[in-house]
């Protein structure tokens, strides 16, 4: 603060008209009004004004040499009329390379720089206009996709609820079947015990077989049930079975007993049924958990990225075909035909300013020197959704540029061409 006051004080006393000081912006002109002395902008030193831009660095902050390369920490202002003004490091003044499009940085070097600001400005404006159009179109498409996303989200939610209902139903069914199987097993056990034991007083109580609701089990009924199980040749007459029961070993005897056979068959039947229901239940639960997993993924504030799940995008780079299936996985297929995983969906990269800017896919195919392949996908704004580029800057670490309208951000619109025009 102190030096500002001092500077102002100096200004008051000076009367000379400011001459053009090279390398400064108009907002800094006030520091460079021609006086007897110049105070380094950081206030560190007072020097004669002739020493401003005299190609010797006097101020530690480089402020006395805005137009030369003398100061290591200095900067040179390219006015760049017709384009964007900007600062370059002092070390790029008169280094034989054209940096400012108005050629102002090479005022004393062997190169002849053309003033290209107008062309650059034109190009930049055209580019920015193009970008704006892309952005407008992108945002329009994004809105659609958001709407679709919301619908899709609801649809998925409905689907989830439906599945959950099915699961509940199945749960009930499952319990019923478990009970039935349990009974069948018990019946089978009782039959077996009855056959084995001398005391046949305990008559197996087969509720399952007694479909005709009488107390006895009709051999025919059993037989009919048995046929599909054992096939024609294995069919035995009741007598034969009885004889065998009487004379055979207890094990053989029991397995050939018609009651037992029936009980066995019933138990088997119930087990199969139970298994079917269990499988159905499991499938539904898996579907639910898949769907839940899908729905747990962060699809953006408006579920705008949801539509990408389930899609795949391909791009051929040199000898490889890359496939990006967002929120799922990435593969690389060589022309020779071998396919390699470049990672499965991991997460959104956290630290970025824009939370939905980069996706990380990890744990792909292991690498030669340890570790596994991984891919970072950067999302950029565009009017269509497509994979734009794939690179492998380090071995097994891939980067992809993925364009999609949903990556369009309204904030971009605020940026434009800052020009002194």
């Amino acid at each position: 603060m102190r030096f500002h006051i001092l500077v102002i004080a100096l200004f008051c006393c000076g009367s000379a008209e400011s001459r053009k000081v090279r390398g400064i912006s108009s907002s800094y002109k006030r520091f460079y009004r021609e006086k007897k002395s110049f105070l380094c902008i950081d206030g560190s030193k007072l020097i004669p004004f002739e020493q401003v831009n005299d190609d010797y660095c006097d101020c530690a902050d480089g402020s006395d040499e805005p137009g030369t390369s003398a100061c290591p920490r200095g900067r040179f202002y390219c006015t760049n009329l017709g384009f964007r003004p900007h600062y370059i490091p002092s070390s790029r003044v008169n280094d034989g390379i054209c940096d400012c499009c108005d050629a102002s940085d090479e005022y004393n070097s062997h190169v002849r720089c053309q003033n290209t600001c107008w062309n650059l400005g034109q190009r930049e404006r055209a580019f920015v206009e193009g970008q704006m159009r892309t952005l407008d179109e992108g945002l329009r498409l994004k809105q659609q996709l958001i709407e679709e996303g919301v619908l899709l989200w609801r649809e998925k939610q409905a689907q989830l609820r439906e599945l959950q209902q099915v699961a509940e139903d199945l749960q009930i069914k499952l319990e019923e079947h478990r009970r039935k199987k349990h009974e069948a097993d018990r019946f089978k056990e009782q039959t077996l015990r009855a056959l084995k034991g001398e005391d046949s007083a305990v008559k197996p109580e087969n509720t399952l077989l007694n479909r005709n609701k009488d107390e006895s089990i009709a051999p025919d009924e059993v037989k009919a049930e048995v046929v599909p199980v054992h096939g024609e040749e294995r069919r035995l007459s009741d007598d034969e079975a009885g004889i065998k029961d009487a004379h055979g070993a207890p094990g053989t005897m029991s397995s050939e007993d018609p009651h037992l056979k029936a009980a066995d068959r019933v138990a088997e039947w119930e087990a199969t049924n139970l298994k079917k229901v269990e499988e159905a239940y499991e499938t539904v639960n898996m579907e639910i958990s898949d769907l839940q997993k899908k729905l747990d993924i962060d699809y953006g504030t408006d579920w705008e990225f949801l539509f990408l799940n389930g899609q795949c995008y391909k791009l051929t780079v040199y000898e490889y075909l890359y496939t990006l299936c967002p929120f799922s996985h990435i593969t690389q297929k060589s022309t020779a035909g071998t396919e390699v995983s470049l990672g499965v969906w991991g997460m959104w990269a956290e630290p970025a300013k824009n939370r939905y800017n980069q996706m990380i896919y990890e744990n792909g195919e292991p690498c030669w020197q340890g570790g596994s392949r991984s891919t970072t996908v950067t999302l950029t704004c565009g009017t269509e959704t497509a994979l734009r580029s794939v690179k492998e800057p380090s071995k097994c670490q891939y980067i992809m540029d993925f364009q999609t309208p949903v990556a369009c951000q309204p904030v971009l619109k605020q940026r434009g061409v800052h020009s002194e025009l």
Partner: protein
Amino acid sequence: MAPVLVLWLAVCLGATWAVDRGNFKTCDQSAFCKRQRALKPGESPYRALLETMELTNTRLTLQLINDNNKVRLLLELYRLQGNITRVKINELKPLKPRYEVPDVLIRDPPTEPLSVLSQDENGVVLSLGAESQRVIVSVRPFRLDIMEGHDVLMSLNSRGLLAFEHLRMRKDTQADPEAENKEEADAANQAETTKEEEEKAEEGMWEETFKSHSDSKPNGPSSISLDFSLPGVEHVYGIPEHADDLKLKTTDNGDPYRLYNLDVFQYELYNPMALYGAVPVMLAHNAQRTTGIFWLNAAETWVDISSNTAGKTVFGKMLDYVQGSSEIPQTDVRWISESGIIDVFIMLGPTAKHVFSQYASLTGTQSFPPLASLGYHQCRWNYNDQEDVRSVDAGFDEYDIPYDFIWLDIEHTDGKRYFTWDPHKFATPKEMLQGLVEKRRKMVAIVDPHIKVDSNYKIHNEIRSRGFYIKNKDGGDYEGWCWPGNAGYPDFTRADMRAWWASMFAYDQYEGSMENLYTWNDMNEPSVFNGPEVTMHKDAVHGAWEHRDVHNLYGLYVQMATADGLVQRSGGVERPFVLTRAFFAGSQRYGAVWTGDNAAEWDHLKISIPMCLSLGLVGISFCGADVGGFFKSPSPELLVRWYQTGAYQPFFRAHAHLDTPRREPWLFGPENTALIREAVRQRYTFLPYWYQQFYHAYRTGEPVMRPLWVEYPQDPATFAVDDEFLIGQNLLVHPVTEEGSRGVTAYLPGKEEVWFDIHTFQKHNGAQNLYIPVTMSSIPVFQRGGSIIPRKMRVRRSSSCMEHDPYTLFVALNARGLAEGELYIDDGHTFNYEKKEFIYRRLSFSNHVLSSVNLVPDSHFTTNSWIERIVIIGSSKPAKVTLKTADGNESQLEFDFDASMSVVTVRKPGMNAGADWTVTLQ
């Protein structure tokens, strides 16, 4: 096939990070080394036959006879200009010629007269010029002693280890009638043959196998050996390349140091195993004298070192000293080579600088590199495509880090066919190179010597049709596996092959090449993936010679031919830049070398210092290690420390293995980026000094990066220092090479010296161990009081951008208020300096006057550069400072005085850097 592959994978993946020692021979596994090493010191069977002595003005010849087998040898002794004695020993009548190494000596060394001082039946005394130096040739047993006054400087065969395996007929071919006729025709020969038959044929003489490789050895045993005793010497150096300390160790309890150019995968540190290059030159030093031994032999070589004081503790040595009973310390060295002849140059110093100049007079000096090649090099295996190159280049501008060269490794080619570009990834190389031209930067692309066997590849077809490939023992083209798969190896020992190779670098031959594209020769040991010890079969054939004879020379020839190509493409105008991995004595003439495939480990950072110091001692100044380490991935701390160290080593290139994550300087957060930027910027401010040092090395053969003992030869405290080093005489560098370091202890040499911290200008006295606290930004570097160092403080994007920038002179005063330095300027890239198109000035400060005087009055060059600042360190405050220019004009200069550090900074004197002037402090 599959299980083999799996096994191979398992072995590779399961291996620890270390060399597979089993792939490389120990002395015991190398038949000739084992045979030779079995001979113990004792009385030599050789006797000098004085009656055969012939002395011309410049040469003495004398026959030696081995009393055991009666085989005669011919000894030749020359006195060479510059205090060098050459001793050559060959068979008097070898069965066929033995290989004598061509193309390493820059000319037939000029001789000086020899004369006989005295002679009797026990020997001859020869005078070695005026310095009371004599050679005593003793007859029985034969030995040579080189004396100065009463001191023995060096003795040859004093331990009786001269052993010369003469060429002989194979026993099972003796029935060959032709051979019989020959024997009958030569009675003497027959007598010898009879003797020979008494010798036992040992295993490995006529055939040798290592792992699955068989060496057919059609010429049988042919090895040679000689011992050298160095009385009064406890320190020997040199014989690179080994990943070991600067001071060579004794080898009694292990293998000898091995010299055999090999592609060693993941080499281990601190052992005598062979590496990529070989320079058979050893320096011996004590407080009184430095001498050197140059063993000119390109075959596999082993060097044994023993010492009578090696086992003694410091206390033991002190006890000897106190009791006065000490025997004179002595180091004994023994050289063993597989074939060729004994051709040894004894460089008698007496100082290290004399030895450098003696060695340079034999093999030439460091080529004077283009200035840009002393800047920073950014390399990686690989920059993937043109877009990658463009974005890395842009990264350096974005993060404001200077660099001069970006490098392309093998993946830039079309299927590892050198001289070609990948049609997709590098479709428009000239566009890419033009992009670099616009930034005033350059590129290096790799060209390896193995050539893909592919009938659609022009280079292969031409080499094959011209018969330029090395042949296998059966006469067909030798083929081996390398990066492209099956590959042929051009015979670079042929001058016509080299001329053809050089012509391939012409802009119309090497498509896509431009003026700012330079070359890197890798794998030129040569590396043969499926060969014995990952190199070529020794029985492969180069015309009249076996690969066995020429092996260590191959890499030198590859770089020679490539450098010639780069010179020729510009019509002889532009200096070449070629980096090589394999090298031999003389390689300094062709470019730079690096220490090969190191690893991102702290010990590898440390070893880069002794490895480059050892190379510097034997003439190869342009040395560097891969910054960051090639294998593995460095921690940010290691990477920063490596940049800080590399910034003060001659060849400054970052490189990384294909499998490692990217490590461009800005990828480790803003703090580390800033630290790396600062290290690289320091390098660029010192470029005028580096350039001047290389000019000096080119002129004198003195190393740029040198051990302390070279400048402080009488201070034993410096003799084994290899964690710090000097650049020229005036900068002392002690890089931080320990993880988590909070301080280093640097030895500041010289009782009379003062040293100034280059960052703070704080003054320190010499001859002390100085503890320096360090932070991550510290690079302990000191400027010697008494020196003047010109720097360019305006660091720009590349060295070319700084061409016309003004100089700041850093004048560091010694205790007597004196300082001296030089300023060398030329165009930085052509050979015009040979026509004296340069500015070469002496800067000196005495009696408070700094003056600039032309050192070469008939030189002619003009520069736009001027003197922008003079910083006088260690000065009192002057009342005024006056500039006087050549035309007599006087003007008063402004200055600042920093009383805390006694530094006068003279503001903008403004005179042209090429002018005469004086600046007076009153």
